[in-house]
């Protein structure tokens, strides 16, 4: 009796799990209609033949999917079955692929139209008659807990199982050159940035990637019993929970964060990148966009965000810039060059300020200033085997006109370090200088435009091949003033006085009425 009950419970659990796994039910699509939709909506990137060779193919990272291979990143069939479910295809079209040029189409195509597209896409790889034989086994999900995350952490690092490619801290920085089956360069995911996960950061999606692998890439299946690094169902759930816990908290881009707030401190500004004093300043993270505006344009960036902290005292102001970069690019270093795509440059970062704080709305052109509005450019470079990391001050009058100062640093000092896929760089200057004509004079409380640029030297990012931000703001947090308190008390007293005066008037009949 007990055995039967057990089986019933297991069967019920299986139904629930499968139900969760397939939130959409495959419907028959009309491939002919799908072809029409394809021609209007998809052909531009995925090409006339469905081979991913549309006009923008070489400008997109990752490139558009080649449907003729029939291999897809998001797949919930078993690891040894190459064919994806219709539901998988449906989902990729409906939700798009975050962190790529592929948008979700649910606002423009009806469900039926997406099913029609699914039917059409399968034809490119001759999959229209095929049905997947085996499904991914989700087992029973292990809810996240400290214990599970710790188990996952051990499994992640055990024998370099995951850290071999994803790095010690999961930032995808392990020194290994990866390729997909077509021989194109690919990069392991930076697991601390869940907004770049192609599916989602739901543990179920992570579990599926660990179990099935990512077809056409070097991400293997850890469910494959032949794998030396194979994992049980439970172990895979632990790793999924660990990966979720890797999320970089507080360092994600938030559209409402447009102001870098420099915090006032007493005493010296820390010179070390890992000094606890930096934690007093709340970091603000900005999205980096490839420089696709001025000649020569650049379309295939590697780094996507930069985080900024700022501290100041009565004399100096300093910034701590932090960004994930999978490669430490030191030209001349044999190991760095073996990983880099030629031609290799130094890693670099730049901060940009107007020379004068604008009084009205008018600012310098956000790309390195313009003829009438010069900018100060604080340019840090990572160094080569012959030269150490250094900082230079440039005067900018536009993309094509950036002149280094004769004295080099222009009063800037720097400190920097690279660890586990993250650069941290400090740049420091005095609040004011005696050259107000050419140097920005920082002022407490004012909103000062600030912009950034970044180079990953191993990704051939040199000169105009860079990532940039548009203008944001810097504010040196004003020291506390008594003025708001005084105003508040004065208004309260005035109102109270007026009320008393009114009540007295009313109490004397004849006068008030």
């Amino acid at each position, binding site marked *: 009796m007990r055995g039967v009950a057990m089986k019933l419970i297991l069967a019920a659990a299986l139904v629930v799990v499968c139900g969760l796994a397939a939130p959409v039910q495959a419907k028959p699509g009309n491939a002919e209609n799908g072809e029409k939709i394809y021609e*209007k*909506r998809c*052909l*531009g*990137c995925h090409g006339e033949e469905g081979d991913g060779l549309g*006009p*923008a193919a070489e*400008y997109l990272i990752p490139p558009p999917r080649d449907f003729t291979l029939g291999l897809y990143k998001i797949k919930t069939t078993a690891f040894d079955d190459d064919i994806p479910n219709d539901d998988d295809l449906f989902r990729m079209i409906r939700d798009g692929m975050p962190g790529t*040029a*592929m*948008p979700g*189409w649910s*606002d*423009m195509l009806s469900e039926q139209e997406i099913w029609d597209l699914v039917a059409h896409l399968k034809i490119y790889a001759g999959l229209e008659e095929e049905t997947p034989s085996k499904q991914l086994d989700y087992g029973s999900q292990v809810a996240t807990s400290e214990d599970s995350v710790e188990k996952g952490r051990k499994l992640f690092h055990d024998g370099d199982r995951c850290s071999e490619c994803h790095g010690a801290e999961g930032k995808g920085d392990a020194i290994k050159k990866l390729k997909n089956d077509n021989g194109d360069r690919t990069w392991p995911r930076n697991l601390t940035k869940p907004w770049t996960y192609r599916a989602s950061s739901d543990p179920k999606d992570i579990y599926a990637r660990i179990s099935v692998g990512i077809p056409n890439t070097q991400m293997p299946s850890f469910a494959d019993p032949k794998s030396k690094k194979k994992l049980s169902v439970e172990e895979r759930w632990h790793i999924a929970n660990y990966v979720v816990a890797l999320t970089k908290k507080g360092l994600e*881009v938030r*559209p409402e964060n*447009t*102001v870098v*707030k420099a915090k006032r401190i007493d005493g010296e500004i820390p010179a070390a990148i890992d000094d606890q004093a930096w934690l007093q300043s709340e970091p603000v993270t*900005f*999205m*980096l*966009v*490839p420089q*696709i505006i001025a*000649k020569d*344009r650049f379309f295939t960036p590697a780094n996507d965000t930069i985080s900024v902290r700022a501290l100041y005292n009565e004399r100096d102001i300093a910034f701590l810039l932090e960004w994930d970069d999978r490669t430490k690019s030191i030209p001349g270093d044999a190991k760095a060059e073996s990983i880099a795509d030629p031609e290799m440059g130094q890693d670099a970062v730049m901060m940009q300020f107007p020379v004068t704080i604008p009084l009205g*709305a*008018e*600012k*310098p*052109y*956000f790309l390195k200033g*313009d003829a009438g*509005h010069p900018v100060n450019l604080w340019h840090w470079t990572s160094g080569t085997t012959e030269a150490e990391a250094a900082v230079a001050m440039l005067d900018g009058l536009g993309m094509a006109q950036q002149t280094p100062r004769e004295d080099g640093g222009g009063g800037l000092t720097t400190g920097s370090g690279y660890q586990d896929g993250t650069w941290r760089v400090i740049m420091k200057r005095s609040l004011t200088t005696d050259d107000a004509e050419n140097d920005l004079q920082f002022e407490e*409380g004012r*909103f000062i435009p600030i912009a950034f640029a970044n180079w990953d030297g191993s990704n051939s990012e040199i000169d105009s091949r860079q990532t940039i*931000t*548009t*203008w944001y*703001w810097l*504010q040196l*947090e*004003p020291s506390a003033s008594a*003025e*708001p*308190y005084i*105003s*508040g*008390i*004065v*208004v*309260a007293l005035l*109102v*109270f006085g007026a*009320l*008393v005066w009114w*009540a007295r008037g*009313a*109490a004397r009949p004849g006068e008030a009425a």
Partner: protein
Amino acid sequence: MKAFRIPRLLQFVLVPVVVYAVTRLIFDVLLGQLIPASLMTMYMFFVLAGTFMAFTFTEDGTRELVAPIKALVEDPSRKWLRNVVFVVLPLALGFYTYQLRTPKPEAPLELRSIHPAPPSTVKAYDKRFNLLTLENPYRKLQKEDPEAFAEMVAAGAAVYIENCQYCHGDKLDGRGPYAQGLNPVPANFQDVGTIAQLQESYLFWRIATGGPGLPKEAAPWISSMPIWQDFLSEEETWQVILYLYDYTGHAPRSWEHE
């Protein structure tokens, strides 16, 4: 039997509150279109003024409205309530003033004209174009030679995918992969408020001279629109304009229809 009636003073307070809540509910929640604060302030000013006029239209009405306020200081039985009001009101206004005077880390507002008036002529491709008479040279193919027109649109699609989708998006909705990193955000061509309101010559001006070609009121220093005459031929610019209208299903404005 006397029916329950909301006191007139409470009515006076409730009317603007309900108008405000309903407006917010309709626009912010149901339609998802946030109302700019400045517009809401202006609107609420008129609502308050209107309510005030309606409630003080007759003398009896005015008397009924202010009666509870007068009673507060005149009626000895309300003494307790009066003392509370006399303490709470100054404190509340004092606190409000304090909040108002405390510097906030919010960035200054940047007002800019999104569709500034175009100049009458524009210099591009080493030529001078008269924007008042300029027309898309390929538009006439739409009627005369639909096949050639479709080819032009397809050429425009390729120009778009290769150059524009990074910011303006595959769906022409202004939400390309890099849109999130740009301020101001890229134009949404699907929106009825953009290209559907404009002539093709306006688009030609905006594309050929890009952000730096904007007049001052449109804040050219923050626009990340490239100067496309540096990258696209005159023909490609006209082709991509055809594509923008074709894909979105909008029709360009023209002198003929007005």
